[in-house]
């Protein structure tokens, strides 16, 4: 087994490691360095220390973006998980129990297949689709119906206080199916005897859900929350394609990724964009650490 191990190991690792270091590790390392310069791409970068970060603190667009991440970070996981949990519960244990075997409601399989489908589509494609759905005149799916009934069209993406919620709705639309399947897998591994015992004690559906399903699903919920939180920190494709001029109207839907893209590839402020990238990185990291810490509790063994 020992014979010729090292040439083999090196041979197998060389290409993946080289590729990974060149395109992932090296750029990440450089990002921190570039964020300390005023590089605009033409002349040699000049070291400016923490200047870019100081500028960030006075940048209205940056704070707007952070604020939007805050909204998304709370609303996206909360709404998605609530809807997905409800559906997963219905699909797995909502139906009648026959012979001690808990069943989902009628048509459970069909719903699971349909709900999951948006997950297969690219976010950019979904964004274009919803641009059509939200169109402000008769050609929009929603407003076309409203105007048929003689109602005023709703300016989903144009009204500043509605735009972010319209985008959030699309994110929820896409995400729910994934978490229904994820929670279903978690629920399937809860032994039926537990439900049976609880039911014999006269527990109602609601009690079953809150006292049995929820605690036993805690680990999966935690994973879901982290995943959705990370999605809330990205949101580039949806904002770039769906919102009015990339994060508009007037910055009402902008996110950090959008600002990074704009500063780097429109204004060529590479140093400043990198500083934003570093800020985004630490925000994501803080969020992940906080979530894992705050939601930590004794998981129930079963």
């Amino acid at each position, binding site marked *: *087994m020992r014979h010729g191990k090292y040439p*083999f*190991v090196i041979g197998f*690792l060389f*290409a*993946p490691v080289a*590729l*990974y270091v060149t*395109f*992932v590790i090296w*750029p*990440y390392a*450089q*990002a921190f360095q570039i964020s300390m310069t005023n590089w605009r791409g033409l002349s040699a970068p000049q070291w400016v220390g923490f200047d870019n970060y100081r500028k960030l603190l006075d940048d209205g667009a940056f704070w707007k973006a952070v604020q939007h991440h805050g909204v998304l970070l709370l609303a996206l996981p909360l709404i998605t998980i609530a809807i997905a949990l409800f*559906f997963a519960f*219905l699909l797995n244990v*909502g139906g009648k129990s026959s012979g001690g075997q808990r069943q989902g409601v009628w048509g459970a399989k069909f719903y699971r*297949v*349909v*709900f*999951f*489908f948006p*997950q*297969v*589509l*690219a*976010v*950019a*494609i979904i964004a*274009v*689709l919803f641009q059509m759905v939200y169109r402000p*005149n008769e050609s929009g*799916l929603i407003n*076309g119906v409203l105007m*048929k009934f003689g109602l005023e069209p709703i300016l989903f993406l144009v009204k500043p206080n509605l735009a972010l919620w319209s985008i959030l709705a699309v994110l929820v639309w896409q995400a*729910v199916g994934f978490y229904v399947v*994820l929670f279903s897998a978690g629920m399937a591994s809860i*032994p039926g*005897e*537990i439900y049976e*015992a*609880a039911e014999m*004690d*006269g*527990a*109602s559906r609601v*009690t079953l859900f809150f006292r049995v399903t929820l605690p036993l699903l805690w680990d*999966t919920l935690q*994973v879901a929350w982290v995943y959705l939180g990370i999605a809330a920190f*990205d949101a580039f494709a949806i904002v*770039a*394609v769906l919102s009015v001029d990339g994060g508009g109207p007037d910055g009402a839907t902008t996110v950090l990724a959008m600002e*990074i893209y704009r500063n780097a*590839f429109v204004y060529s402020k590479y140093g400043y*964009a*990198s500083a934003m*990238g570093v800020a*985004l990185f630490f925000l*994501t990291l803080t969020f992940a650490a906080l979530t894992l810490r705050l939601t930590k509790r004794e998981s129930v063994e*079963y």
Partner: protein
Amino acid sequence: MNPQSTLPPTPAALPPKTGENSATGGRRGKGPRSEVRLFAGLGHVALAVWAVIVIVPILWTFLAAFKNTSEIFSSPWTLPAELRWENFGRAWTKANVGRYFLNSVLVVSCSTFGTMLLGSMAAYVLARYRFWGNRAIYYLFVSGLAFPVFLALVPLFFVVKQLGMLDTYQGVVLVYIAYSLPFTVFFLAAFFKTLPTSVAEAGMIDGCGHTRLFFQVMMPMAKPGLISVAIFNIIGQWAQYQLPLVLLSNAKDKWVLTQGIADISVNAGYEADWSGLFAALTIAILPMIIVYAVFQRQIQAGLTSGAVK
């Protein structure tokens, strides 16, 4: 996980609520029956409503792809007067959707193949061979899971530029592979660890070299894991938008589907070719529905595999 051994403690944990339930139990009488029916009824309505919310926008897009502009503006609900296939022809050739589609197929097949090959090689070695630096390299890969791509976007652009691979297929393919490696290595390393050593040892005794052992014994054994990760990567790379946007910005003939459709949607307003845009969207969505309908079980398993560790 064995219910026989772990069950006893659980009923013991339940009593606190049995008390409060028996208090309400008497009042309810024949409660459970009607409660079940009410709950299931409301549940059905909610499920059906969500199914409609998911299906209708997609169905509506398909219908609108056959309409002309005046039909699109007159009512979202009416059926097209005739099937205007020419909308698809216009989208496919004039709006370049055909080109974008084939570009996506080319890029994703190359990058997924590369990801699977390089990822499984690295994962295999890291999972089953002890050597100096093994853990360091493993954590180097896994740490990539924690970094947002946007942190690296600016330097990545310049790295690709310096290598002369900006606006080329190979540039995008290599970058896709590199950014897919963390998850692929993380998942497959765990998978290779679970495979039995006896088969590998038998192979070794038969004089099978390390490389042959990997390709002819271990790879076939790891097939279920490989399929899950391959599906995960195909769908992830097919959906990629930000990387091609940055790496292919000046080569319109090499754009991938997501990029192309997003661009058409910006221009559709100027050219007033709404039916063309709906046709383009249909071309982008329909193949995914067909693939999903055929492989939905594997796709659901593949995409959720990342979350179930």
